[in-house]
């Protein structure tokens, strides 16, 4: 289990020595984040080809009618998948996750909008192993500046990854318990915390996920005196804060508002 990812021309993640161009990757996941292309014509988000050890191709396209098409070919075998999505709100970027397992042949494709809770999924069958050369090539692709503009982030994970909902808070985030603060990374299911209503509520579960620190999971530091903070907090941009007070009431006409970090 491990990540391999590049972002915008910079080689930042810990490289995975086990991925060589020759191996065939049987169970893994590919994640990419990109701005949503125009709906009028087909646009190729990513196209990589490799001739060694076998001729192979990976192509991810956006096609009109709000669909994405994924094509993987390797030697004589070809795999093709389509996923459709409908936008409820105005959003400009999306996150596409492709999970595949070629031993059982099934896979799972999902699209999520970081600004939104919407999730579109599609089950796949007949997945084929992905040549390592394609993965390395795809990751190397984002090193060129013009590709990086259209495809800010691509990551590869060995082993399946879970789709939404994802965690967004740093290990050191203090959580108010009945008697003290405790780091969120040390919380356990069954612990109690104080909700904003002042009630003591049990924690049903603590979720943890590791992702490359870019794209919608790039960490943001909220600095202390702002938002009545006592200390700096580090979180992903998707985390929402609840914000009350007379300013919020005056400007937005409700007691509390949720704001993305």
């Amino acid at each position, binding site marked *: 289990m491990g990540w391999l990812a590049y972002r915008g021309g910079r080689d930042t993640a810990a490289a995975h020595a086990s991925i060589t161009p020759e191996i065939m990757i049987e169970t893994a996941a590919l994640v990419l984040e990109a701005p949503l292309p125009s709906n009028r014509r087909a646009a190729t988000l990513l196209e990589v080809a490799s001739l060694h050890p076998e001729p192979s191709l990976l192509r991810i396209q956006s096609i009109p009618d709000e669909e994405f098409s994924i094509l993987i070919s390797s030697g004589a075998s070809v795999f093709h998948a389509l996923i459709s999505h409908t936008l409820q709100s105005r959003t400009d970027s999306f996150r596409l996750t492709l*999970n595949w397992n070629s031993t059982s042949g099934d896979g799972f494709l999902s699209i999520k909008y970081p600004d939104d809770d919407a999730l579109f999924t599609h089950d796949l069958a007949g997945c084929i192993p992905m040549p390592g050369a394609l993965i390395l090539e795809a990751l190397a692709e984002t090193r060129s500046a013009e590709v990086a503009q259209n495809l800010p982030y691509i990551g590869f994970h060995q082993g399946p990854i879970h789709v939404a909902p994802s965690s967004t808070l740093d290990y050191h985030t203090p959580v108010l318990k009945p008697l003290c603060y405790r780091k969120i990374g040390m919380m356990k299911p069954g612990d109690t915390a104080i909700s904003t209503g002042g009630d003591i509520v049990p924690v049903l579960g603590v*979720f943890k996920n590791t992702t490359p620190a870019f794209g919608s999971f790039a960490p943001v530091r909220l600095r202390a005196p702002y938002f009545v903070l006592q200390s700096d907090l580090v979180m992903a941009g998707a985390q929402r*804060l609840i914000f009350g007070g007379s300013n919020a009431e005056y400007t937005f006409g409700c007691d509390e508002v949720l704001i993305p970090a």
Partner: protein
Amino acid sequence: MAPPAIAQPATGTMTYFQLLFSENEEFIASELCLEILFIGRLRRRKDIFQRTSLSTLPHNFLPEHTASATQILRPYEAITLAAMRAA
């Protein structure tokens, strides 16, 4: 004026955490209220439930969260509000 939020320099991977409560409530971190893991009615979507990060918990045990009544601000609104608070 320094902005209220800055990008945290990071390399490699980040491990993130989040809590789940039975109601869609907020918890307090360093005097600031934060939203918990919002799962909506994901429990009912049996087709994708096993694929999500919730699959480590028993299906029957999971709550359903109703959408909170509060409105979600757009990024520029949030920036305006933060600036107003600082002023």
